[in-house]
């Protein structure tokens, strides 16, 4: 099972940045999209645009005004931050970070730190098992969606709140990796949840 994460690396040294990128890409079980940030001017905008789950930043990056101002400015309050320590650094400075990477960390150490930090984002095994198949209720909702019903109509038909319908739809999209109604239509026809004449 692969977990998708976006990780931003803010580090002025190309060698260190690319080196860390290479290490992260070797980690098994993680599917990581890397956003490279090589100067402070582009940091805020990159974070706003890509909304990474994790920021790995060199605390002595020139022009860096501190963790809090980054978190305030990027509209991503939940972002996790790891300090990338490349030189002797005041421990006081590292305290606000969720964790730290050192230049001599082994791949296993890095992996453990990531797993610990991103634990909430990684679905546990029980959830993985059920991730494959839809529940009966979810199948009913797929059927309604491909018939062109609105969330309101589905809620009325199945005696649910629209809020619950929306939650179900989000779970369906996550399980199947299908987000559009026309994609769900193919799924529903292939799995015989509906017949063509029901949806035309």
């Amino acid at each position, binding site marked *: 099972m692969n977990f998708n994460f976006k990780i931003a690396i803010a580090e002025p040294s190309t060698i260190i940045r690319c080196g860390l990128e290479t290490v992260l890409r070797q980690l098994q079980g993680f599917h990581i999209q*890397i956003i490279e940030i090589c100067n402070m001017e582009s940091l805020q905008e990159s974070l706003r645009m*890509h909304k990474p789950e994790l920021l790995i930043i060199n605390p002595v990056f020139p022009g860096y005004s501190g963790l809090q101002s980054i978190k305030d400015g990027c509209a991503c309050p939940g972002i996790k931050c790891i300090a990338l320590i490349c030189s002797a650094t005041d421990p006081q400075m590292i305290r606000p970070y969720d964790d730290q990477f050192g230049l001599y960390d082994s791949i296993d150490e890095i992996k453990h730190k990531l797993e610990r930090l991103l634990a909430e984002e990684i679905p546990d095994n029980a959830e993985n098992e059920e991730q494959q198949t839809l529940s009966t209720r979810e199948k009913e909702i797929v059927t309604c969606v491909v018939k062109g019903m609105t969330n309101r109509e589905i809620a009325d038909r199945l005696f649910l709140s629209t809020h619950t319908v929306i939650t179900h739809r989000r779970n369906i999209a996550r399980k199947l990796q299908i987000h559009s109604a026309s994609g769900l239509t193919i799924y529903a026809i292939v799995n015989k949840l509906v017949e063509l004449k029901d949806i035309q």
Partner: protein
Amino acid sequence: MYKKGKYRETDKMSDLICENYPMVLVMSRFGIALGFGEKNIGDVCRQNKVDTCTFLTVVNFLVEDRKGLITDIDKCLSIESLIVYLHNAHDYFLNFRLPHIRRKLVDAIQDCPEDVAFVIRQFFDGYTEEVNKHMSYEEKNVFPYVRNLLKGEKDPKYNISIFKKRHDQIEMKITELKNILIKYYPGKDSYLLNSVLFDIFSTEQDLAAHNHVEDYLFVPAILALEKQLNS
């Protein structure tokens, strides 16, 4: 893996293409044909009246596959030339690539149950229509706006940030089709369907790269131009 590193105009065009075969599409979108022999990139560009700097900027941008923001766009970049490139890419997707995939796809799925074939075709046609809308907006609104900007005429009601905000990822839905075929296609194994799948993989990447050029080269270049006109 493709060779990393910046290409220069003294590098051979054939080396560029052999080391990074998707660049054959870039070349063609700039209007350069195959058969350039041993000539270097600069010579081939000049011979075809293509702006070398713009060509190299796009090539290096794509080859280096930078995920971050480009802050140092080369001053020599020609926006006219970039628009020609983007326009030709639109033409390629809408008038060649997607219709070509559709023909192959329809052929490949003819053995599967008719209702499944029907909804797959419906999905693909819906997707094509979305791409069409997405690209027509650029052709009808964004490019004319930029062409006027280049003449020094600023539209008080439009700016490139409007485009930047509404510009969505056009490859998302073809990714979905790929996932559906891989996970749920009910028919038999077929060479043709696998070939369609390969086409979809490469089109997905090509569309993502195209959007990337628009978001990270084109938009920043226009932002700079707007700033220059306002000052």
